[in-house]
């Protein structure tokens, strides 16, 4: 700790520089969108990689989140004789918080790290410099397609996650614990609102999380020191920074949207 203490001041300025650099990088990314349109195939390939390839983990995790939520809620609500409300509580908890947040955390671990590592290795092996030599804009060819793919993939993944969580809750609640099927659905449909819960809760939040996670991943990849150690640190930083950003942004978005 003592050795790090003198750097404490530097850590603050470094963090500020990272945040500022990230913001400027976002502007560069957005400015490169028109130029990256001709690399549409690349965007599609990234969508396959970050979206379709993440489906398995998202679906399995969604299923288990729904199942464990239902088990816990059934246990607690049975004290008050309110087990019929457990389906509705599962739906609200998943739509408003757990769906977008857990999907984004998984997305940061599954897709964010691989984006950082891939771009970091491109940087370390001078591929990015080579692209510049060949007059291929690395921002438009490497960064923006990944950013757009993350932006498109996250809301879709969050929807799949939520649907699987509802399915898991239904499986445990109705099939195993014996909540009435009609009660399960009618309580849910009576309270869940399309605008508040699905558009604001699932779609808007996951869109914001997708933008933040891929921005951090691409930025860390581009700015990594071109060494194997640097790539390792950049990958770690992607997960840490994404997780903090997701949870902090979740609080802010909830406060604004509710």
């Amino acid at each position, binding site marked *: 700790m003592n050795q790090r203490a003198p750097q404490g001041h530097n850590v603050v300025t470094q963090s500020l520089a990272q945040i500022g650099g990230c913001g400027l990088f976002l502007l560069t990314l957005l400015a490169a969108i028109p130029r990256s349109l001709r690399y549409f*195939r690349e965007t*599609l*390939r990234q*969508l*396959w*990689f970050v*979206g*379709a390839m993440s*489906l398995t983990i998202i679906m399995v995790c969604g299923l288990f989140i729904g199942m464990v939520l239902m088990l816990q809620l059934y246990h607690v609500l049975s004290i008050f*004789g*309110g087990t*019929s409300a457990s389906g509705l509580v599962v*739906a609200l908890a998943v*739509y408003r918080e757990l769906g977008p947040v857990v999907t984004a955390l998984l997305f940061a671990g599954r897709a964010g790290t691989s984006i950082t590592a891939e771009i970091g290795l491109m940087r370390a092996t001078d591929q990015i410099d080579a692209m510049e030599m060949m007059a291929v804009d690395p921002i438009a060819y490497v960064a923006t397609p990944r950013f757009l793919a993350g932006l*498109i*993939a996250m*809301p*879709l*993944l969050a*929807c*799949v996650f*939520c*649907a699987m969580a*509802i399915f898991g809750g239904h499986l445990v609640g109705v099939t195993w614990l014996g909540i009435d099927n009609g009660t399960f*659905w009618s309580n*849910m*449909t*009576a*309270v*869940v*609102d*399309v605008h508040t*819960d*699905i558009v604001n809760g*699932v*779609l808007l939040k996951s869109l914001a999380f997708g933008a933040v996670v891929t921005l951090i991943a691409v930025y860390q990849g581009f700015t990594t020191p071109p060494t194997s150690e640097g790539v390792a640190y950049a990958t770690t930083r992607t997960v840490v920074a994404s997780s903090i950003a997701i949870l902090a942004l979740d609080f802010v978005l909830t406060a604004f949207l509710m």
Partner: protein
Amino acid sequence: MSQPRSSYAIGTGLFIVLGFAALAYLATQTSSVANVHQGASYTIDTHFSNIGQLKERAPVKIAGVRVGQVRSITLEPGQEVADVKLAIDKSYDRIPLDSVAAIYTSGLLGDQYIGIQYGSSKKLVAPGGTLTLTKPAQQLEEMLGKFFGAGGVADNLGGTYVVTADFTNVGALTVGAPVKMAGVPIGTVQSVVADPVKLDAKVTMAIDKRYNQIPDDSAAAIFTSGLIGTQYVAIQPGGSPTALKNGDEMILTQSAMQLEDLIGKFLVNGSPGDKKDAGNGKPSAPPAGKQ
């Protein structure tokens, strides 16, 4: 990423389709959209003496099946009657004229809804018509009151359209709590202070000017919304031809029921007779018991 181009294109396409299918499923099957009836509806008028916690857009059910929703809830001017308009789906247009509209609660703590029980009349309710037979929401305090023979006690009201009332016990009544008549909020509690002379709780209520025809012998009672809800002041109109004016004092009040007192009475002798002392020497009214 050595996959052939068509492979990931198809996979990505499947992923996008699956994502949108999940979104469509969430939006239509698990949300309130599933309850929206696109079909046209017609309106039926009902009048309730008390609507309890009924809210607009609450479901209207026949035999437990949702057939429509509550369109609006207003208080009939000058009467202690809540006018509730129901929007019923056009496909359920064969409701007998002598059907009964009743306010029920889903479970002990659930939301309230209107249930329609068919009568035997051959005549049907016309769109815009009125169901005259209604059953109001059950108030826990009134049920308890019937058990214990609870009567009205004394109250004061005063103000421009500020009225005061003295209660021997306000329970958990707080400033800002609603003042209701027939279950419809008509004002708020402005202050709750202890009277240093009479040793009562003096409650000041601000009542909406629109409701200026409340008889001056009306009773004010402190009720609780549901079993564990917040407390509010309920006004039960009397029969006097003169209306309450600003600064008036309501004579008849009924204090908050203390669960401990009720249980204590059960345990000691179960007699309702000793509750009269709740009036603290003020004129004690006969039981309000309007139902």
